[in-house]
């Protein structure tokens, strides 16, 4: 039996053939090594992320997350909900807090959910996978699993916005979180604690609707990593990962830069450090290949 069990909310972008399907592969590998069992919430739906407000308003948007929490309470009772996507985690936790503070809204949500035969108790803790690693598993247990230290790789820890604000990880600062740097060091790589763009916004969903404005911010995130001599950037967020990785050619064309900076998930780093294959670490999901990790995985 697995040491730890959670009710898992994977989110739309992690599905097969979707933009962070590589994230899910590496998370599954990482969890196998850490003896964590993820029980998917059956029939979960989209949380509407950060731009659901326009079409959804308040109650319909919150009911989306309410349905997921209710399904989790029904099918995975007693298990804490864990999300790997920053927006999924934020939206679910935000909905839970709003319902806790506003009983009228909770009553309305339950009237709506009754239409689908569901009842929301709303008392299940909701965590990001980073919290599971830092608070439940701990750096020492992670370090004990490292078979191939990521020696000689310099990695900029890009925490981004929504894994960090407004909830963040217990004991960490909103302005200067250090858990990602600690994780990088734990895996035997070199962190860059003074990476000044660690909590800079990448534009989020506005990378689609306001590409020029967002790419200007993304440029700063990558440039600072180069300035610190980073070999790659690591992030816990699917939107950050995609935005910072895939627009580099367009940014190069606009600004005359020559960026080719790999952007990986913490779970990719961990899977490689735990001695798993390139495929199990989802290195084949990199649009910009992370060659230094490929070399270690091939050893």
């Amino acid at each position: 039996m697995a040491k730890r069990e959670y009710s898992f909310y994977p989110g739309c972008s992690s599905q097969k053939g979707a933009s962070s399907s590589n994230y899910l592969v590496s998370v599954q590998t990482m969890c196998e090594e850490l003896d964590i069992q993820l029980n998917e919430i059956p029939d979960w739906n989209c949380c509407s992320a950060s731009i659901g407000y326009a079409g959804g308003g308040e109650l319909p948007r919150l009911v989306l997350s309410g349905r997921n929490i209710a399904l989790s309470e029904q099918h995975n009772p007693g298990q804490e909900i864990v999300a790997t996507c920053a927006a999924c985690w934020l939206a679910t936790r935000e909905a839970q807090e709003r319902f806790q503070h506003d009983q009228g809204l909770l009553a309305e949500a339950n009237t709506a959910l009754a239409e689908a035969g569901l009842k929301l108790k709303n008392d299940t803790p909701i965590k990001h996978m980073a919290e599971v690693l830092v608070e439940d598993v701990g750096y020492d247990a992670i370090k004990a699993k490292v078979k191939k230290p990521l020696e000689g790789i310099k990695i900029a820890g890009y925490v981004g916005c929504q894994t960090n604000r407004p909830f963040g990880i217990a004991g960490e600062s909103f302005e200067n979180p250090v858990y990602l740097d600690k994780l990088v060091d734990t895996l035997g790589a070199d962190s860059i604690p003074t990476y000044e763009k660690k909590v800079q916004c990448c534009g989020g969903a506005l990378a689609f609707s306001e590409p020029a404005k967002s790419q200007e911010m993304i440029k700063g995130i990558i440039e600072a990593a180069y300035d610190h001599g980073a070999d790659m950037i690591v992030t816990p967020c699917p939107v950050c990962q995609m935005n910072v990785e895939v627009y580099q050619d367009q940014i190069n064309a606009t600004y005359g830069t020559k960026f080719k900076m790999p952007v990986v998930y913490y779970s990719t780093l961990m899977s490689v450090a735990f001695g798993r294959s390139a495929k199990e670490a989802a290195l084949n999901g990199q649009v910009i290949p992370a060659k230094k990790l490929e070399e270690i995985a091939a050893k």
Partner: protein
Amino acid sequence: MSDLNSAMIEKYRTSFLKEVEANVEEGEWVKMCMQCGVCSGSCPLGKFWDHPPQEIFMMIRAGKREEVLTSDAMWMCTSCYNCIVRCPRGLPITHIMHGLAHYAKRLGIAPQNQPTAKFAQLMWDNLMKKGRVNELKLGLSLYFMNGFGEGVKTALKMKDIGLGMLKTGRMSPMEMLGGHGVKDLGGFHKAIKKAQELEDARIAKHGK
């Protein structure tokens, strides 16, 4: 002008602040703003806002209803939550901006052709179809949201990014045919419809 907009103008003639408090998500917090400006200075796209949050809060209190609700400003919010964690008085600023944007849209006076307003609605419609976002269809609808000609141009510009995603298995042409979705789609739709009815009724009652 929509009937709801006219009804709200009539009802709250003397106080836009009261209108916001009653009808905008987290609007009851607006009067707590102490005008320090930390939110405006913390906003990553702040330089593009017609009116940064601090100014929006003062304009609400000054009764500048039309300037606020027709503004492009709130639609520039990237949901980075910098303003929320830094506000000395704990205003949920991100949510208030989202709430104002939605309220303007509900009244039919949000700016036309605002790219994020359009994209956000496309995303909502997309996820409502099957309960989960279909990234491929959402991407294509985004490219073509300003007409066919511009859509073809955008699609060509984005071709290399699409190929990169395709090659790494992070985009699938199969999503065009059906794609992912929830199984209890009937229950999903009924629950969201009910939520919409409850919220519409609550706000319509305020307009009377």
